């Protein structure tokens, strides 16, 4: 039988040892985001990916949940840049605006999934029409975040983006969700 109390004490001792480094990493990321988003310097922004994945920022993934969402956003932007699409961070001058956009997008997708009411669906639809998402943004958010997409949700998303996704993007999206 595991000695739970010892494991717990060990966890919190490690947490205490990591506290200063975690705070330093957190400040570094905040500074980098401020600078990169302020100048819309995408290479600088994307330099945070290795910092978080394998560098000193790794601790943040262990202790701060929001880091996972930030990393997801960075993955989205990296793919959007590679495929010359509109970037998720466009119009987001700082970290708060970026994280708020992500949250509101997630909320809208959930509203479409849960179908609480007609007005709830309409509000979500309006938000998504005003903030056109790339196929990568939709795919990564629905596959990685706390939402369980069904076929009806993906059909609705495809319908909403029919006018802004190219045929190639629509095919890419169909392929991505087919292999989910």
């Amino acid at each position, binding site marked *: 039988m595991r000695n*739970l*109390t010892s494991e*717990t*004490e060990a966890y*919190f001792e490690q*947490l*205490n040892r990591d506290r200063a480094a975690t705070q330093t990493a957190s400040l570094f990321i905040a500074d980098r985001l401020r600078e990169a988003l302020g100048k819309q310097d995408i290479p600088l922004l994307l330099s945070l990916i290795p910092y978080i994945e394998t560098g000193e920022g790794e601790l943040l993934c262990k*202790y*701060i*949940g*929001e880091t*996972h*969402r930030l990393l997801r956003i960075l993955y989205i932007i990296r793919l959007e840049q590679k495929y010359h699409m509109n970037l998720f961070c466009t119009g987001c001058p700082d970290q708060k605006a970026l994280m*708020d956009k992500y*949250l*509101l997008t997630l*909320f809208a997708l*959930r*509203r479409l999934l*849960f*179908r*609480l*009411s007609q007005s*709830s669906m309409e509000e979500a639809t309006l938000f998504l029409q005003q903030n056109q998402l790339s196929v990568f943004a939709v795919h990564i958010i629905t596959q990685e*975040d*706390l*939402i*369980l997409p069904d076929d009806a949700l993906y059909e609705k998303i495809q319908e909403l983006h029919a006018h802004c996704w190219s045929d190639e993007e629509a095919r890419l999206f169909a392929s991505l969700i087919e292999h989910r």
Partner: protein
Amino acid sequence: MNDHKFCFIICTNNSLLLEEAVHYINHLYIPDGYEIDLLAVTDAASMTEGYNEAMNASDAKYKIYMHQDVFILNKNILSDLLSIFQANSQIGMVGMVGYDTVSADGIMWHAPGNYGNVYQKKPAVIYPALSEYHYFPETDGFHFAAQIDGFLIATCRDLPWDTAHLKDWDFYDAFQSIRFLQSGYKIAVPVQRHPWCMHDDGQFLNMEKYDYYRHVFRDVYGEWLGKNYSEILSVAE
């Protein structure tokens, strides 16, 4: 006290999350003859102070204390909660996730017997549409618990939250669970075939002060560590 009223109580520091949580509350079915109210506490010094302030300000018999990042999926939750409270007059508190024993290390989710449900990314069973959510109190039932998770706590009795020991945002749920049991009230966790709530907490705790309050909990309630809810109830005042 208005015994046909529910009051949602939320301590908040994020208007986006609050608005979304309220959006889901606004879609709940309200039982005939009942009304609902919402108190959002925006400048609380601590969770317990915020909850006490709202508790004292509300005349609702039924209070639902919840986090700003909780989205209620079960549109019938109010009538379902009523059915649980009415099933056993000793029940004073209901949670969505609970544990029948107080964990030896003070961390409630380390306790062996856990009950309840919460929306998950990888559920064992695929969730149906919300319109197909149904709870049958006689057949689905509920479990009694020693501790419930604070992301959503419904009560039909007002007991003050422990501001003497708790000055921050941690362990208020563990303390309040023991307080209810010591006062002779049972704590129930409904069997949820499908989760009644989503708790979008980023799947991580803010551990800043957590360990400090874990030690406080162990100091204050050390006699109950490792004990079952019935053992605590048996010495109720």
